[in-house]
């Protein structure tokens, strides 16, 4: 369980990125922070592994304040998938994935074989393992980043817009991959995105943020859709748009789901 207790962060230049943020993230679930750019998502995420220190308040993992833990040890115990992959350009793909294992003291050959297995888990062609990151496409690099986050089998996985820089088809693929992985691995995932559809797809708990890390609403996707807290949330999740307001129509003798503009969105399957 991860808990934010009245966390605030003001950077050295005076920017207040997060103001009095409190939240509990239950273990073995995926919590998604969603909000527009600059609302403090990355800052919140980075406070979990002490890449950012709160100005006030505490972040606790299983009731232990992370401020009391050695930051290097802490980071090694947490998987972190970075925006734009964040691979080391001077290491081959397989060695990039092996980094967390090597830092944890795992021997070279075991680290390599576990890294290759992690690459297979995220569906990366093994032929690419010996390449350098810049010889890979953006989507492939993202997969490598996910593999690196998973390789040491951490209980907690932090993911910062991991699929933001890839094209929609690859993103779809990666999202499905992550859902499958989560069913198998049962990790505590904190996922950051600015895409509400992605948030609703992946999140058990979705946290909609305003500027300054202010919580607009917390809930399951269904709770948020059924009962948006205010107009900001209503607009943010797109309830003011035709594609979210569906109804059923009888057409050509079948029951078709139609959006607010009358465009067919799908059919009603068996319950």
């Amino acid at each position: 369980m991860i808990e934010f207790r009245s966390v605030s962060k003001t950077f050295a230049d005076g920017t207040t990125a997060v103001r009095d943020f409190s939240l509990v993230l239950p273990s073995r679930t995926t919590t998604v922070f969603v909000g527009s750019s600059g609302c403090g998502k990355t800052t919140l995420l980075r406070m979990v592994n002490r890449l950012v220190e709160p100005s006030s308040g505490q972040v606790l993992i299983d009731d232990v304040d992370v401020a009391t833990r050695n930051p290097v040890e802490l980071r090694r115990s947490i998987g972190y998938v970075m925006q734009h992959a964040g691979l080391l350009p001077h290491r081959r793909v397989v060695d990039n994935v092996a980094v967390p294992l090597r830092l944890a003291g795992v021997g070279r050959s075991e680290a390599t074989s576990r890294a290759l297995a992690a690459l297979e888990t995220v569906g990366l062609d093994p032929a690419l393992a010996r390449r350098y990151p810049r010889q890979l496409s953006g989507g492939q690099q993202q997969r490598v980043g996910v593999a690196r986050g998973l390789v040491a089998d951490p209980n907690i996985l932090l993911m910062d817009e991991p699929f933001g820089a890839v094209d929609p088809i690859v993103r779809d693929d990666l999202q499905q991959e992550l859902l499958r992985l989560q069913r198998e691995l049962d990790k505590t995932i904190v996922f950051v995105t600015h895409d509400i559809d992605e948030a609703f797809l992946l999140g058990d708990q979705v946290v909609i943020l305003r500027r300054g890390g202010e919580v607009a609403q917390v809930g399951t996707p269904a709770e948020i859709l059924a009962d948006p807290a205010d107009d900001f949330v209503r607009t943010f999740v797109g309830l003011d748009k035709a594609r979210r307001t569906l109804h059923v129509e009888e057409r050509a003798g079948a029951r078709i789901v139609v959006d607010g503009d009358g465009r067919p969105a799908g059919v009603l399957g068996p319950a």
Partner: protein
Amino acid sequence: MSWLDANLGRIGDLALTHLWLSVLPVVLGLLVAVPVGWWAQRHPRLGGVLLGSGSILYTLPSLPLLTIIPVILGTSILDPLNVVVVLSLYAVALLLRTAADAFAQLPREVVDAADATGHSTWQRALRVELPLAGPVLLAGVRVVSVSTVSLVTVGALIGVSNLGSLFTEGFQRNYTFEIVTGLVAVVLLALLLDGLWVLLGRLLLPWARTERSAA
């Protein structure tokens, strides 16, 4: 030509001496400049002062320095060590700035990734920052290497033999061919050494040459 035939062996000896008088300062300069430059870039205020004094060091003229150093070190004026010390100082002065720049220009997100994956400060410096600074350091080393090879010749003026001795002798004997031979030998040595640095770079920094492929 008979002079050349008669002196080939000696020219070879001078070239060898010249080689180590050039390589040693560059290597020593690198060994000092890299850690100090790394530190300077992490502590901008004191580091700035340090880099500034490095630049002043380089403006000191070599000949007077070569006569002062023996007094400070208590070495004989003919000791090749004096040349090594003076040229090492120059190498440090030049490479300090290069090293600080090399570390300062590292992409933020890569250094950040090193932290996020749990590198300690030392692991980050040695396994991530140093190799990534490699290409810029190498470029600096190549410049310093060439200038050091040419500066070594000044040592001949105070009696430390090297290929520069061919200049001094040639002047004394008014024998132009010997001077030209010395000049050509110095240039060839500088090129040879440069080639060796490039080769070393290819071996140590294979990733720096990979092309982005359409994947």
